[in-house]
């Protein structure tokens, strides 16, 4: 099949994934709830008010995003697998890369919605300007990076019983560069004079790297 037909089918599939995610929100609601709760717990534990906020917020934000995001995406193929849809797609003439890209884009979009909402909430809670273009850019790049990897890992059901739980733990060591770059870029963007460019560069490098590897590897996972 040609590229344009794959693109067309991919868009249809993306659309279907979104529709499905929208109608059954359990997974995403859980991720959102987890994120909010974790954010509140952190703010109690660290007393996130006053001058301390700036130093701690980047770490708080990214551990919350990373954990809730990976737990949510770890389940992303789960529903398709239970419905049999993943198998139906696998035996269809659709290219495996198209299945992967459509699912990853869905995950990215859903996570960005949650993360932006959280940033808005945190802006109000901690009275720190978090909803700023630079930070939104960093969050977007970082989310694309880790979703690319965790969606790939979630495609293979390791074990019927604990596949969903094992995966997030396995994914984390691979995400060290992403975590460092995201946290540093975020904290730099909160400082007035600091320089975010090298961290955004590293973050972009990681994102391109993980997206490319994952897209190429997915057909082999089939």
């Amino acid at each position, binding site marked *: 099949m040609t590229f344009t037909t794959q693109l067309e089918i991919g868009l249809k599939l993306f659309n279907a994934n979104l529709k*499905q995610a929208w109608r059954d929100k359990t997974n995403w609601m859980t991720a959102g709830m987890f994120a909010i709760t974790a954010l509140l717990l952190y703010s109690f534990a660290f007393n996130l008010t006053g001058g301390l906020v700036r130093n701690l917020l980047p770490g708080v934000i990214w551990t919350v995003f990373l954990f809730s995001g990976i737990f949510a995406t770890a389940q992303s193929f789960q529903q398709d697998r239970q419905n049999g849809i993943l198998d139906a797609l696998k035996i269809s003439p659709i*290219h495996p890369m198209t299945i992967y890209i459509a699912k990853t884009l869905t995950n990215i979009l859903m996570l960005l919605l949650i993360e932006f909402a959280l940033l808005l909430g945190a802006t109000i809670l901690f009275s720190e300007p978090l909803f700023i273009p630079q930070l939104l850019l960093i969050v977007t790049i970082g989310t694309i990076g880790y979703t690319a990897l965790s969606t790939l890992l979630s495609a293979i059901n390791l074990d019927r019983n604990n596949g969903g739980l094992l995966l997030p733990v396995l994914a984390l060591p691979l995400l060290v560069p992403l975590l460092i770059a995201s946290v540093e870029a975020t904290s730099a963007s909160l400082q007035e004079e600091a320089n975010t460019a090298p961290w955004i560069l590293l973050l972009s490098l990681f994102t391109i790297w993980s997206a490319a590897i994952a897209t190429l590897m997915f057909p082999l996972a089939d």
Partner: protein
Amino acid sequence: MQDLAIETNRLTRRYDGLPALNRVSIQITSGSRIALLGNNGSGKTTLLTILSTLLQSSEGSATILGYDVAKKSTALRNMIGFIRHQPMLYENFSPVEDLELFAKIYRVSDAREQIRRLLTNVGIWHLRDEAIGTFSRGQKQRLMIAKALLHKPKVLLLDEPEIGLDQSGLRVLDELILMRKEEDSSPITVLAATHREERVDTWATGFVRLERGQIIETTLSENTE
């Protein structure tokens, strides 16, 4: 010699070292309707799943209409229709939404008309906008029949297609697949696993009986090497 639709050569699949399918060699000519018989755990599902390109064989090879199953080519996948034990449906979609997506994927022309015709034929046109998750098992199975026929496959692989079907459902299955009158010149080949042995005579042109992953009885010509 007639065209071969399905050919397997010493096809083997092991789980935890135990063979679920053990050196199975069959040849099925184009247009025949073969019943796949055997007790639970005899390897019927494993054989069908390998032929559907979903499962990798441990050893041996299989071809459908000349295409190697292990290569999983697009051309091959366009020609296979598969109904397995569990339904393969978007639970929170309506039948029309589900079929429209797959019509796009299989590049079915006149999709709208096809979907209407198939849903009417399987008798669930009146449920076309309901969520599939609310369907009974039999209704889902009817929808699966429609879905398997959507892209006009040349080879149909069915794993106990009777599951959940009532009397009228069974008639639908017979009319559309097992005993269907050929409309066009290209015949459809059916390989169906079933436990309803009393009905086999009414539709099958031959059978294969498996036990512990091996062929113990068959009307097909043995694959001689």
